[in-house]
C-alpha cells in the first residue's frame, strides 16, 4: 500500500510540468495555433527560475519570472506566425533549436559551465502541507508532496472548462480557432486573439519549466525538459483538446514516468514504454480519420 501511495505521489509530481505545458498548448490550439515550441519555453522557464531563485531567494519571484519569460517568448513566436505568416511548425522547430542554443551559449559563457547550472541558495518550491501530513493513511504521501504549482495546475484544469465557456475571451478564442473569418466578420481582431492564446501557452510552459527545476532538484540542466513539451503536445492531441481528458492523459504519462524503474524491473523496457505517448497520438489520429472517412461514405 505504501508502495502504491509512493508511486502515486511521484506520479502527481512528475505530471505537473507536462500538465502545465499541455494546458497552455491546448488553449493555444483551441485558438487555432499548434504550438510545437512548448519545449523551448519550458526550458527557458526552468533556467530563469533557477537564476532568479538564487538571486532573490524567493521561489515566488522565480515562478513569476518563468511565467514572464515564457509569455514574452510566446508573444514573439506568435507574431512571426500571425503577422509574418511563418509556417507554425517550422517556426516552432526553429524556436526550439534557437532557445536551446541561446541557453547553452549563456551557460558556458556567462556561467562557465557546460550543460548543468548549479547556483547557491536556490529556494525550492515549498510544500503546501507540513511534513507530518504524510502519516495520513492512503493519500498522506501525495499530500506531503504537493507544491503550489501542482495545486495551481490542477486548479487550472478545474477552472479551464468554465473559463473557456463563460468568459468573453474564452468564447472569442474558441471562435478564432474554429472560424477566424467569422470572428473578423463580427468586427473582432482574430490575430490578436490568437496572440493571446500563444502568450498563454508561453506563460504555462514557463511555469512548467519552473516546476521542473524548482520542484526538487534545484539546478538547471540542458536536458531537463527531455521532450516533455512534445509529450504535452501528444496529451492534448490525444484528448482532442478537452481539458479534463488532457489532464487524465497527462496523469497517465506521469504514471508511466513514475513507475519506469519498477516497470523496468518487471521486465518492461523503459525506452519502449517512453514511445507510448507518441504511438497513442498516431493511433488516435488514425481512429479519428477512419471514423470521418466512414461517416463520409455512409
Amino acid at each position, binding site marked *: 500500500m505504501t508502495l502504491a501511495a509512493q508511486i502515486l505521489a511521484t506520479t502527481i509530481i512528475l505530471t505537473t510540468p507536462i500538465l502545465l505545458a499541455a494546458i497552455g498548448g491546448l488553449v493555444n490550439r483551441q485558438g487555432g495555433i499548434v504550438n510545437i515550441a512548448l519545449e523551448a519555453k519550458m526550458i527557458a522557464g526552468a533556467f530563469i527560475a533557477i537564476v532568479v531563485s538564487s538571486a532573490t531567494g524567493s521561489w515566488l519571484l522565480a515562478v513569476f519570472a518563468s511565467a514572464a519569460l515564457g509569455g514574452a517568448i510566446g508573444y514573439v513566436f506568435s507574431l512571426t506566425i500571425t503577422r509574418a*505568416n511563418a509556417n507554425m511548425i517550422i517556426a516552432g522547430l526553429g524556436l526550439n*533549436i*534557437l532557445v*536551446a542554443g541561446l541557453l*547553452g*551559449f549563456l551557460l558556458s*559563457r556567462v556561467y562557465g559551465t557546460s550543460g548543468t547550472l548549479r547556483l547557491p541558495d536556490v529556494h525550492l518550491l515549498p510544500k503546501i502541507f507540513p511534513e507530518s501530513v504524510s502519516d495520513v493513511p492512503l493519500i498522506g504521501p501525495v499530500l506531503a508532496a504537493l507544491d503550489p504549482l501542482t495545486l495551481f495546475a490542477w486548479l487550472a484544469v478545474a477552472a479551464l472548462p468554465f473559463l473557456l465557456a463563460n468568459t468573453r475571451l474564452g468564447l472569442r478564442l474558441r471562435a478564432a480557432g474554429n472560424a477566424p473569418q467569422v470572428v473578423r466578420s463580427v468586427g473582432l481582431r482574430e490575430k490578436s486573439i490568437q496572440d493571446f492564446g500563444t502568450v498563454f501557452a508561453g506563460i504555462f510552459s514557463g511555469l512548467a519549466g519552473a516546476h521542473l527545476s524548482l520542484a526538487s532538484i534545484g539546478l538547471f540542466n540542458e536536458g531537463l525538459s527531455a521532450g516533455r513539451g*512534445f509529450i504535452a503536445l501528444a496529451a492534448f492531441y490525444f484528448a482532442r483538446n478537452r481539458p479534463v481528458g488532457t489532464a487524465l492523459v497527462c496523469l497517465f504519462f506521469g504514471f508511466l514516468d513514475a513507475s519506469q524503474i519498477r516497470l523496468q524491473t518487471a521486465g518492461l523496457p523503459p525506452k519502449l514504454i*517512453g514511445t507510448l505517448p507518441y504511438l497513442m497520438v*498516431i493511433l488516435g489520429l488514425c481512429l479519428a480519420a477512419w471514423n470521418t472517412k466512414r461517416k463520409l461514405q455512409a
Partner: protein
Amino acid sequence: MSDHVNTDAMPADGLAAMVRRGLDGTLRFVVPIGIAFAVGAVLLLAIGENPLETYSLMLSEAFSSQRRFAATLSAATPLLFTAVATAICFRTGVFNVGVDGAFILGGLAAATFGVMLPMSIGWWIIPLSIGAAMLVAAFWLWIPGVLLARLDVDEVVSTLMLNFVALGIAGFLVNGVLLSETSGNNTTETIHSTAELSRLVPPSTLHSGFLLGLACVFAYALWSSVTPAGFEARLVGLNKRFARAVGISIPSTIIVVMVISGLVAGLGGASHALGQVHKFSDGFSAGYGFTGMAVALLARNSALGIVFGAILFGALASAGTTIQLFSDIPLDIVNVIEGTVMIFAVVELGKLTLWRKGKRP
C-alpha cells in the same frame, strides 16, 4: 507562324526570367542567413567578442586548409542526405518532418548488419548493410505516407511523433539485444572493418559517404527536373486540384515521395554509421534531420542550394567546434544561427508569397 515569333522572343525574355529567378533564389538564401549571422553578431558583441573577427576566424577554420575543408565536408555529409530527403517531400507539398527518425533507424540497421553479417562475405557487406538501412527507413516513412494518402492523417503530427518512436526503438535495441558486450552502454559493437566506407583524405574523417551524398543530390536534381515522376510531384505540390484534373494520382504520388524520402534518409543513416562513427550509439543523429530541414528550406528545394546549404552548416559545425576550443566561444552559437535561419526562412516565404498573390488580380 506564331511559333517563329515566339522562338524569337524567347531567349531574351527567357534569360531575363532566369536571371530574375536566380536572383530571387539567391536573395531568399542570403537574407535568412544574413539575419541569423546578425543575431549571432549581437550575441557575440554582448559577451565582448568582435563578431567580424570571430566570423573570419570561423571562415578560415572551415575552409583555409585541405584538412579543415575536409572536416567541413565531413560534417556536411549527413546533411546532404537529410536535406534531399526533406526537399523531396516539401516539393510535393508533403510536410514530412520525420527524416530524423528514418535517418536513425537507417543508421541502426546499417550498423547492425555491419556487425552481424559474417566477415567472410567480403565487400558484399557494404551494399547489404546499405540496402537494409534503406529498406527499413523507407518502410518507416511509408507508414505516415499511407496514413496521409488513404486516411488523410495529418503528416506533420504523425512524422513528428514517429521521430520519438524511432528514438525509443533504437534506444531499446542498443540497450538490449544489440548492446555491445565490450564497449559499455547504449552502443552496438564496432562494425567489421570491411564494412567501413573508405576514408577519402586521411586522417580526416571525410569518407566516401560524401560522394554518395553528392550522388544523391545529383539524382534528386535529375528526378526533379527531368523525370515524369518528379514533374508530377511538383505539380501536386503546386496545386493538388490541378494535378488531379490532368490525371495525376495524388495518393500514389504522396506514397512514392515518402518512400523515396525514406530511401534517401536510410542511405544517409547508413553512410553515417558505416563511414563516420562505425557503430550505432545513442545520440547517433545530432539533429541532422532538422538541420537538413533548415538546409532544404534555405535552398527552397533546389539541388544546388542544398549543396551550398549543407556545406554552410557543415562549416558552422566544424568551425564551431574548433573555435570553442581555441577562443572560448560556445559551440551553441551554431544552434542559434540554425534556429534563426529556420524561422526566417519561413517568415520570408510567407510574406513574399502573400505579396505576390495579392498583387495579381
